[in-house]
C-alpha cells in the first residue's frame, strides 16, 4: 500500500510538472495598416516559463518592401535588449538579457515592424526557440493573428 501511494504521488507530481512547463509562444498580429498605408505587424512574446533569451524569424510576403524595423524592439522591458534586422523579406529578432535575467511568465510586448506590400499575403514565423536562465533550450510555438 505504501509503495502504491508513493507511486501515485509521483505520478501526480510528474503531471503537475508537465502543466507548469507551459510552452512559450511568439504572437504576431499582422495586417494592421498605419496612416501611411503601410502594413504593420506587432510582435509579442508569451513566456510560458522564465525565459532569458529568445529568437524568431518572420518571413514577410515575397514582395514586401520598405521594411522598417526601427520599433521592432521598442516595447521590450528594460531588463532585455536585442537585435532586429531585415534581409530581403525576412526579419529576424534575437532578444536577450545581458546578465541572464529572465522574463517572467506572461505576455511581453516586443515591438512592431512596418512594410509595404501590394499583394498582401501572410507572414510566416519560424526558427523560434528560447533559453531559460540556465541556458536550457526550449521549443517555442508561434501564432499569427490578423485583423482582416
Amino acid at each position, binding site marked *: 500500500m505504501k509503495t502504491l501511494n508513493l507511486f501515485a504521488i509521483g505520478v501526480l507530481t510528474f503531471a503537475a510538472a508537465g502543466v507548469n512547463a507551459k510552452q512559450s509562444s511568439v504572437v504576431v498580429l499582422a495586417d494592421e495598416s498605419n496612416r501611411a498605408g503601410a502594413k504593420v505587424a506587432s510582435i509579442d512574446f508569451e513566456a510560458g516559463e522564465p525565459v*532569458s*533569451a*529568445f*529568437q524568431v*524569424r518572420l518571413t514577410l510576403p515575397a514582395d514586401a518592401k520598405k521594411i522598417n524595423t526601427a520599433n521592432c524592439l521598442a516595447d521590450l522591458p528594460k531588463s532585455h535588449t*536585442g*537585435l*532586429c*534586422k*531585415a*534581409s*530581403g523579406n*525576412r526579419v*529576424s*529578432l*534575437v*532578444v*536577450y*538579457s*545581458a*546578465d*541572464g535575467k529572465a522574463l517572467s511568465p506572461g505576455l511581453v510586448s516586443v515591438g512592431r515592424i512596418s512594410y509595404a506590400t501590394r499583394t498582401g499575403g501572410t507572414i510566416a514565423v519560424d*526558427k523560434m*526557440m*528560447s*533559453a*531559460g*536562465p*540556465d*541556458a*536550457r*533550450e526550449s521549443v517555442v510555438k508561434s501564432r499569427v493573428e490578423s485583423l482582416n
Partner: protein
Amino acid sequence: MIRKSQLFLAVAALAGMNVAMAANCNTTQWGQGTPPGGAVVGAPTAGDPSSDDGTPNTSARYSGSCGLLADAVGEYVQDGLPSAEPSYIQRFYVRPGTTSGEAIVFRAMADETTDYPVVQISYDGAAQQFIFRVSNATGTGFLGTTSTAAAPRNKWYAIETNFNRTAGTLAISSIRGNNGQTIAPSLATINGITLPAGDGVDYVQLGWISGGTGGNITVDAFESRRSTAIGHLKRSDANGSATCNASDITTIANEIVDVLGGEPAPRLSAGQPDCNEDGSVNASDISCAAVVIIDDLNNDTVCGDAS
C-alpha cells in the same frame, strides 16, 4: 625514426572538457608517444578564465574551460603520437601576444640523430604576422620560400595546415580569427619540400617554443589527423551544441556574471563563447553572438558557416 607504431592519430587536446572540470585544467593528454623532453617543457599554465574558483591558474581559452598560457619563452607541450608521418594535418588555436622578435608557436618535428622541424609556424611580434616555414632537402634548415599572414596580436586565430611528403607540399589550409575573419596567407601552398628518405613528422610542439619577447602566447584546441580536413570550431557556439542561437547568448551572459561575481563554481561555457576572439569573454561577445545569430536566421547559415 619511428617512435611509435600506433596508427591512431586523432586528437590531442588540452584537457578541460566541461564546466565540472574547470578546476582541473591540466596537460595530461599531452606526452603520448613519449616525445623527447616529455609532455611539458618549461612551466606553461593550464588554466581557466576564472581567478575565483579555487584554482590558482588563469588562462584565456578558446574552447571549453581551459587553455594553455605561456608567459615566457620555452614553455610548451609536446605530443609524440605521430610516427614518421608522410601526411600530417593539424589545426590549433593560438593567441599570440609577443611584441618583438619571432616566437615559434608550433613545430612538427622529425626525430632523427639531430631532430629538426619539418614544419614551423612562428609569430613575428613586431610585424604582427605568422610565418610558415618548411624543411629543406637536407633537414638542416628551411626552404627559402615562406608564407606569411597578417595577424594583429592578442586575438585568437585558428591555423590549419596540411603537410604532404609525397607531394612535397605544405598547404596552409585555413587561417581564421580576430572576429571571424578569414585571413589569406601570402602563399597558400609551399612547394618543393624534399625530406631525407624515411623522414617525416614524429612529434609536435605547441606553445611558446623559442624566440620572441614581450607579452605571452596562449594556445588551445589542438587536433591532428592523417587525412581529411579538420576545420574550425564554431565561433559563438558558446554551449557547444554546434549551432548558434539564443541559448548561446544566455550561456555567455551566465559566464560573464559568474566570473565577474567571483563565483567559486562559475558556469564556464563548454563551447566557444569568445565570439569576437579577443581573448576575454565580456559583454561585447554577447553583442557579437547576437549578430551571428541574426545573420544565421537571415541567411540560413550555421554560426556564420554555410549549412
